[in-house]
């Protein structure tokens, strides 16, 4: 393994985060606060408890997932797309690094930033609603796995995208709706039976359900399915990236 290369990529990518640290920190704090004002206070006050948890506290895991998923995709896709766009990817492709080392560096940095944001949101939420985390280690594990898997997915989007419009396409048109419809702000048990069945085809349901379980012990689907979904998604992304580097798809002539 070329550990120096992994460290160099990681440091270089994290430097981008530190350059925009206020934007990185303030932005999620403001948006989280807005969600709490809108969903927690304005709408939430009209909704009774969900399965014994106040609505404000109930939406915290979903809210964290929403930010972490979108941030992971955005960070990782931009991280690899930008070198493609400005041409500096030549250096990466001509260096003695394997796909695994490149991915570890880029995805590691993207996931780190997302994890930081997730924890900042958690801290901000704590200011608005009293909440408990029943299984903190499981919560951290779910959060980390989500950051990693969606950073991998973002990395694929960054390689696939030919322009900035395409970079935004999948996150805006597919991922965000899937997160909103994945039980971020409600329990799927609140839906009519037909929609409950349809919702089970949404992979994000499993992530949010597992994550919420680590907070309150409540889950829409069995914990095993949640773990299987996130691990399966991670493996799928890793396989796709391996194929991309093996064939040079969209990165080599």
């Amino acid at each position, binding site marked *: 393994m*070329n550990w*120096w*290369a992994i*460290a*160099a*990529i990681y*440091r*270089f990518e994290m*430097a*981008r985060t530190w*350059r925009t640290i206020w934007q990185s920190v303030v932005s999620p704090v403001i948006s989280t606060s807005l969600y709490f004002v809108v969903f927690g206070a304005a709408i939430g006050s009209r909704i009774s408890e969900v399965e014994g948890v106040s609505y404000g506290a109930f939406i915290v895991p979903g809210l964290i997932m929403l930010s972490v998923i979108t941030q992971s995709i955005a960070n990782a896709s931009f991280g690899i797309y*930008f*070198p493609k766009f*400005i*041409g*500096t990817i*030549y*250096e*990466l*492709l*001509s*260096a*003695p*690094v*394997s796909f695994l080392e490149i991915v570890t560096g880029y995805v590691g940095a993207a996931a780190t930033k997302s994890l930081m944001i997730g924890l900042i949101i958690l801290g901000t939420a704590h200011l608005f609603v009293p909440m408990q985390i029943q299984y903190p280690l499981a919560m951290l594990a779910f959060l980390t796995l989500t950051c990693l898997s969606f950073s991998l997915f973002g990395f694929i989007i960054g390689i696939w995208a030919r322009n900035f419009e395409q970079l935004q396409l999948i996150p805006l048109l597919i991922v965000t709706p899937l997160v909103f419809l994945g039980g971020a702000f409600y329990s799927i048990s609140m839906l009519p039976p037909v929609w409950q069945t349809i919702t089970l085809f949404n992979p994000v349901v499993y992530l949010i359900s597992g994550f919420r379980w680590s907070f309150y012990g409540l889950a829409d689907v069995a914990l095993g399915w949640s773990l299987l979904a996130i691990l399966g998604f991670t493996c799928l992304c890793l396989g796709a990236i391996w194929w991309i580097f093996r064939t*040079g798809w969209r990165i*080599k*002539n």
Partner: protein
Amino acid sequence: MATMISVETVSKTYASGPAALTDVSLSIEQGEILALLGPNGAGKTTLISIICGLTTMSGGRVTVGGHDVITDYRAARRLIGLVPQEIALEPFERVQNTVRLSRGLFGLPRDDGYIEETLRKLSLWDKRAAQSLELSGGMKRRVLIAKALSHEPEVLFLDEPTAGVDVELRKDMWDIVRDLKARGVTIILTTHYIEEAEAIADRIGVINKGEILLVEETAALMKRMGQKQMVIELQAPVDAIPASLAKYDLSLGDDPCSLVYSYVTQAGRRPGITALLSDISDAGLRLRDVQTRQSSLEDIFVDLVKEPRA
């Protein structure tokens, strides 16, 4: 001298378009400077990209320092530094950091002492904390060279290193290249500036339409293919070449008082200057001055890419 780069029957056909390289074979010795000349689209950058791992070859084999660039890519790439044709730098990153990144990518631990030495040699030390976007075009090109040298490569590819830079910087680049050669670095450069190749290259390769037309030592190429001309200035004008001089390749000069004699300096052929001067005297023409001039590499290059191969 040991072979540093071996290119064996390499071909490349892009998905959309004709063959970019056709059975290209080339051997580059350790410590030499090879200049690759060729018109736009000749295949120079494609060849470099294949050796460096940026482009996948359609067929053939390439080794660098004895390491196959596909099966043993780590060892092969560790030896190579690449200065690309296009200026590509992270605009918001600082010079020193971007050079550190390059060193790390090639598997070496951080060495600020070496990076300082490299930046100083390239007159970049004062700009080490500047963001790339603040630099001039020439400075950016120097940063690219610093990045390519950050991991102490044994082979350096310079793809059009002096394109668009001023004369002073170009001379600096030549000095850098000569210095690297003195340290034993093998250098392959592509250029449109033929005087550049003539001035610094040990050997010259000419590539056109994806085929290597020739690879030869610069001096030998000049000697073999360099045509010479002797301009004979006369004391009185002449209207036509005298019949007694018809056996010589003579033509009337632009000036009515001059004749131009073309000859080849190829080994084994006599230029016939002594006999010509004697016959001119016998023809009753009086000499005022004699000058010779040699065709430049540019003329040779133009002839090579224009003429179909024998």
